[in-house]
């Protein structure tokens, strides 16, 4: 019994010595490396000329714009007034096509605002379609918060930016 204990103790001791040796061996880290440098190429985007602006449409609709509340795409009664006359104008000029672009203010995230701008444009499109305008005459897109009309950080500026423009 005593013998066994001695052996165990001895083994433990040598195990610890081994551990200490191991840790002192592995504690020194030796490294060599080279700086990597991948090149970078600059590209210039060829921006498509905006051929979608139709001056006849512009004149008829007189830059009709409707405004929205924060995080909302619901049409207000004031917006509906604006849209009512736009519907009349489109019925009187059956050849014109329109583009509705939705926008958001700068608060909130950019991608969510892009989606919100799209919903605003779609709300306006839905109003036209419900009032008898053929959907094929309407296209929609969103610029989110990328084309602010007013740079301010107060509510007056924000409310100008939350809009859908009809062109």
């Amino acid at each position: 019994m005593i013998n066994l204990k001695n052996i165990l103790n001895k083994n433990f001791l040598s195990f610890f010595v081994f551990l200490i040796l191991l840790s002192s061996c592995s504690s020194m880290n030796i490294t060599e490396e080279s700086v990597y440098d991948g090149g970078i190429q600059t590209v210039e985007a060829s921006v498509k000329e905006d051929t979608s602006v139709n001056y006849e449409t512009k004149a008829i609709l007189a830059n009709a714009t409707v405004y929205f509340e924060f995080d909302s795409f619901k049409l207000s009664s004031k917006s509906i007034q604006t849209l009512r006359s736009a519907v009349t104008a489109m019925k009187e000029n059956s050849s014109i096509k329109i583009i509705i672009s939705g926008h958001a203010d700068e608060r909130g995230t950019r991608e969510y605002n892009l989606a919100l701008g799209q919903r605003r444009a779609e709300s306006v499109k839905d109003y036209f379609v419900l009032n008898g305008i053929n959907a094929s005459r309407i296209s929609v897109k969103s610029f989110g918060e990328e084309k602010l009309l007013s740079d301010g950080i107060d509510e007056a500026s924000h409310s100008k930016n939350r809009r859908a423009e009809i062109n």
Partner: protein
Amino acid sequence: MKIFLSLLFFSQLIFSELVLEITKGSEDPYSIALIEFSGSKKITNEINSIINADLMRTGEFKIFRESQLLSTPTNEEDIKFEDFKLLGIDFIITGSLINEDKFNVSASYQVFNVQKETKIRTSKVFGIPNKLRQLAHYISDGIYEEITGLKGVASTKLLYVTENINDDKTIFKLVVADSDGSNEQILLKSSEPIISPSWSPDSKQVAYVSFETGMAKVFIQTIATGKREMVLENSSQISSPSWSPNGKFLSITLYQDGNAEIYILNLKNQNLTRLTNHYAIDTESSWSPNGSKIMFTSGRSGSPQLYEINLRKFSSKPKRITFEGNYNAKGSYLSSGEGIVFVHRAKNNFQIALKYTNESFIRPLTNSKLDESPSISPNGNVIIYAMTENNMSMLAGVTLSGAKFRLPARTGEVREPSWSGFLR
């Protein structure tokens, strides 16, 4: 307070191009003695100050410079560990430039453990003469890695968008820079907006949304060659690209259904798989580190909130994961998988917030008015984001231990930072 002020003063004195605002570093920082590198002063001055700034920005160190030390050994034999123990210093870093000529510049450095009175690292970095900053960043990362056991991010890159007005013309640029904001290089210039840039997992390509065709479209560009391609040519707008961790898929938001819905695009065969189907907005997808889940922003509860969908379970339903407040958006996963970082609205302020999976509350990380676009460093320790102050926009960072820093402020806009993977 005194320490904070002297730190602030000290840091501003040395680094003119960097505003380091160490408001609160790690609660238990490592004390290190940074002995100036020996070699020609013209080069070592720059290298010393970059290494100091890199280490400072991590928030993990209390740095002692030569004027604060009892002795400044230039080689190993001269080190009197007692002098460093007295000041409570844990590690000593020494280094020197070797091979400085027209074509070569390399450096060697050593890290010593003061308590154990031993050298724990000896390293060599072979650099490129006109890329001194990179050489210094590599050294910083080696030191950080040796002491903390985590990989350093000083040698990684940031991708972001700038907007400037020149002669009444607005110019948008997609820019790559070092992680300290220096060494800016332009990837793309355009007169129309660029948004949502993100790196491929191997950091060789970037994806972004460009409005150059008149509406939002997603492009993938190879950094080294400038070769770019529009993903999915169709007539509706496409946005919010996010790479799967294995680089084989891109989650994107499509508007072809008249509403924002998330799809997964197989980059090899162009197959599309629809992920969401709801009349509310679904966008801003991002992948979990192991690729098994996708988090996204959805308006389905009536306000933007974060949801998660399990890709491994057949037809699994999105699960809502944020409940605090009426605006939680643009989430990304911590690389440890232990939590998420996102934009949170608190009263009228938009802040960057953190939520650990095992906690029911959120932790605000920032507190200015309009903080957005958080992106997490590849080691999971730092979050970079865009902020606005006094009409100046800038990138700022916060570490999970609470240290804060800012990158150089600029006129014009700088936004949507995205952190690369490891490049070293």
